[in-house]
């Protein structure tokens, strides 16, 4: 079974600075998908960024980018120019390759990010 580990329960960053959230995973599969989800306080969980393991290029979405190290099984999220609205719980998640029964996600325990004005 796959496991996802987020070793930083809490992080804080000064507004406008850059912060990196860590995520490692364990799998024997060669192809898979990785996600970062954001859960703002009292609001719905939303997808931040998605990475396909067969793609070597790191995914980027505006101020959010990932550092995907397949050999090291590491998938960190970098948030540049942090804003107050980035304050949230961030979850890293893993999904097996496409196929019937593989749609479920395995989540890490989350990192609570605080933005300091």
């Amino acid at each position, binding site marked *: 079974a796959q496991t*996802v580990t987020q070793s930083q329960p809490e992080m804080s960053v000064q507004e406008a600075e850059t912060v990196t959230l860590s995520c490692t995973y364990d799998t024997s599969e060669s192809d898979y998908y990785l996600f970062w989800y954001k859960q703002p306080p009292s609001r719905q*969980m*939303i*997808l931040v960024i*998605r990475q396909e393991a067969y793609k070597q290029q790191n995914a980027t979405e505006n101020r959010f980018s990932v550092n995907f190290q397949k050999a090291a099984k590491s998938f960190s999220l970098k948030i540049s120019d942090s804003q107050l609205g980035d304050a949230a719980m961030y*979850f890293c998640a893993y999904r097996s390759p496409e196929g019937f029964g593989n749609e479920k*996600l395995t*989540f890490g*325990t*989350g990192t609570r990010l605080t933005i300091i004005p």
Partner: protein
Amino acid sequence: DVKVTQSSRYLVKRTGEKVFLECVQDMDHENMFWYRQDPGLGLRLIYFSYDVKMKEKGDIPEGYSVSREKKERFSLILESASTNQTSMYLCASSPPAGSGGTDTQYFGPGTRLTVL
């Protein structure tokens, strides 16, 4: 935009009561999921469904059952609520795998259930 709604944001029930949590999605998604979120444990999958009347156990199905009579609706049932089922419950939906990058899961706002 995909919309996933859950019947209640907050719910308080007594031990032994039968509890129904309802989830509705408006995007004709085949897949629907129920998760439980607890501090320090992240999200854990309770049950999921690929289609109407189809269900699969997740990682922590004990004490729960589900029902999917219509494609847009997925219900989580606590047959006899217990205090250790006090938690945040999140519903999600997604199109089937292989949907070309649109196969991510969309979440509802959550139901915070307290069992006394």
